[in-house]
């Protein structure tokens, strides 16, 4: 009997991790992506390997997901991670007032933390604001966004998954009874259209998943929520730096290679194919960022960019949960053959994939359990190095 064929739309974090999981469970997987790997939101992620500390107070579900997945990623893909930890620093009375709930919530979410005296924090990170009043060490980290995706994609490829990049989905192939049985794609490199058949199609297009489900006549389960990032040209810190307070604009600074990246903002948007950067947001990152690291004012911006988070559920902007949702459209709309996964964080990509693969496998009567928690990924270079 031939293996069931699953098409995954989108080669961002969710798509490549889902391809990896499904390939390990014995599916024949084809990933179609309109650009190259990480063409959309995933590539432009700030790269914070969340410990969950940022969400512990307001969004415990996401926080627990983050700490669990943080520890797993450190084991299976150390090649793309700067595992140096994170500091939450308090600079005023309001920050100090937040500390109590922060400690309690981190404990509840089993996020290990260590309180530091200001002088000890400054010893660890001499470039942070010398007016620091308190600081907490937590197991944050940073990662290279593209290489994180490549490691999943390369391992999936090694296990038989095929990647069709520069293939844009233009519609679904329907079976005549209202169910999805494939996709119509435009091969942008050859300027040719073709139809591809599948037993299940997974929509892993994040901020664009509403546009893709609309091709099947379904409503959008996602709200694209962009935010700005500004990279400055000096590596001021070794650890991820967070303001000890309710998540807000410009309150994260991450080291990456010889830079630090300051992020971010959060607002609702419709079309996210191209999101212009605005001067006031750049100014805000400098103002807020230099509260955490005053030296940023003497460095130069190296890259400025926007990324659109795919948030799910009610509310808007910051108040929305960072957790993820997987929809079997057989259950939501009585349309078989289509599964949508959206929401979530880069840090939880593996868990999102596990959930999605569980749903897909149940539809295909595959009982093989998920093994991605224990499976180290191959070198990220394998994605390009091995033939398609």
């Amino acid at each position, binding site marked *: 009997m031939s293996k069931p064929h699953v098409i995954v739309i989108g080669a961002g974090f969710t798509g490549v991790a889902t391809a990896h999981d499904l390939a390990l469970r014995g599916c024949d997987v084809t990933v179609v992506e309109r650009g190259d790997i990480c063409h959309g939101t995933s590539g432009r992620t700030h790269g914070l390997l969340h410990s969950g500390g940022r969400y512990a107070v307001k969004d415990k579900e996401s926080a627990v997901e983050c700490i669990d997945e943080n520890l797993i990623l450190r084991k299976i893909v150390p090649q793309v991670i700067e595992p140096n930890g994170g500091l939450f620093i308090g600079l005023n009375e309001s920050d100090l007032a937040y500390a109590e709930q922060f400690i309690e919530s981190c404990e509840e979410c089993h996020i290990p933390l260590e309180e530091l005296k200001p002088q000890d924090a400054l010893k660890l990170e001499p470039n942070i604001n010398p007016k620091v009043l308190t600081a907490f060490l937590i197991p944050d980290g940073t990662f290279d966004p593209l290489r994180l995706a490549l490691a999943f994609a390369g391992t999936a490829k090694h296990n038989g998954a095929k990647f069709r990049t520069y293939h844009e989905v233009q519609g679904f192939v329907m079976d005549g009874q209202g169910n999805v049985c494939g996709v119509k794609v435009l091969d942008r490199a050859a300027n040719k259209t073709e139809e591809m058949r599948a037993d299940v199609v997974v929509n892993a297009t994040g901020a664009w998943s509403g546009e893709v489900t609309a091709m099947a006549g379904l409503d959008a389960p996602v709200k694209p929520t962009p935010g700005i990032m500004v990279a400055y040209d000096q590596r001021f810190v070794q650890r991820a730096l967070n303001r000890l307070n309710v998540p807000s604009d410009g309150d994260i600074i991450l080291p990456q*290679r010889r830079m630090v990246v300051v992020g971010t903002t959060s607002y609702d948007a419709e079309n996210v194919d191209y999101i212009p950067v605005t001067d006031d947001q750049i100014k805000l990152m400098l103002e807020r960022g230099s509260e955490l690291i005053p030296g940023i004012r003497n460095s130069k911006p190296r890259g400025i960019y926007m990324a659109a988070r795919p948030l799910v559920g009610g509310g808007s902007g910051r108040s929305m949960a960072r957790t993820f949702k997987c929809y079997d459209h057989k259950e939501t709309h009585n349309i078989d053959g289509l599964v949508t996964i959206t929401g979530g964080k880069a840090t939880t990509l593996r868990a999102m994939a596990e959930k999605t693969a569980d749903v897909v496998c149940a539809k295909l009567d595959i009982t093989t359990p998920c093994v991605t928690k224990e499976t180290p990924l191959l070198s990220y270079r394998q994605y390009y190095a091995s033939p398609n």
Partner: protein
Amino acid sequence: MSEKWNIILRIYRQKEGEAPHMDNFQMEVNPDEYVIDAVERAWAFHDRTICFRHACHHSTCGACGMRVNGVEKLTCITLIRDVTYDGATLKVEPLRNFPVVSDLAVDMGLFYRKMEKVDARAVLPVTEAEIENPPRKWASEDSEYIRLSDCIECGLCISACPIMATTPEYLGPAPLAAAQDHGIHRKPELLSIVDCEDGVWRCHSAFECTAVCPSFVDPARRIMDLRKQVVGTRLSKLIGKA
């Protein structure tokens, strides 16, 4: 209010089985945006068939290397202001010495196989990276910190290297720099990979690689140093110390 420039973006186009040509896009741009933003805008609003690679938009992933007005650039950190002027053209072409997949997108396969062959380090202790900013001495505990390596595998050095154009067999600047980063003393198995016709001796010291490197790797200096390492190893063997 952001400044606005009107430019003609000239993009190299090549589809499978077709002859290459240039397409012109008349565009209004903010000169303080980057070249990749102009390319992405051309794709989003003018022509959905343009193919290009990009991901991080801040010089950590190395995907968006292209030739801008004939010079290799990482387009996500190249300001439009620095490469053209109001009313002028801006020419964008794919990297040389790589097979073109489509338009501006190139195939990184052979290059990544060479990086893998020398087992280029993806991450390394921060104290081993030759980092000068912020200027401070490393504390003893700093050796526990890990950072991503300088080389972002963008391929600009491969595109700019005049010797690379003569044979794809040449290992090339970034892989040789990665071998130097390991050091032959630490990884003796690299000796046979770099001490050969297509290794360290094929370089003609044009230094184009260092001129275009966007990420502080300085491949030319590293190749010169690797030669020293190779000669040193040979001498040690000669006098029986190895």
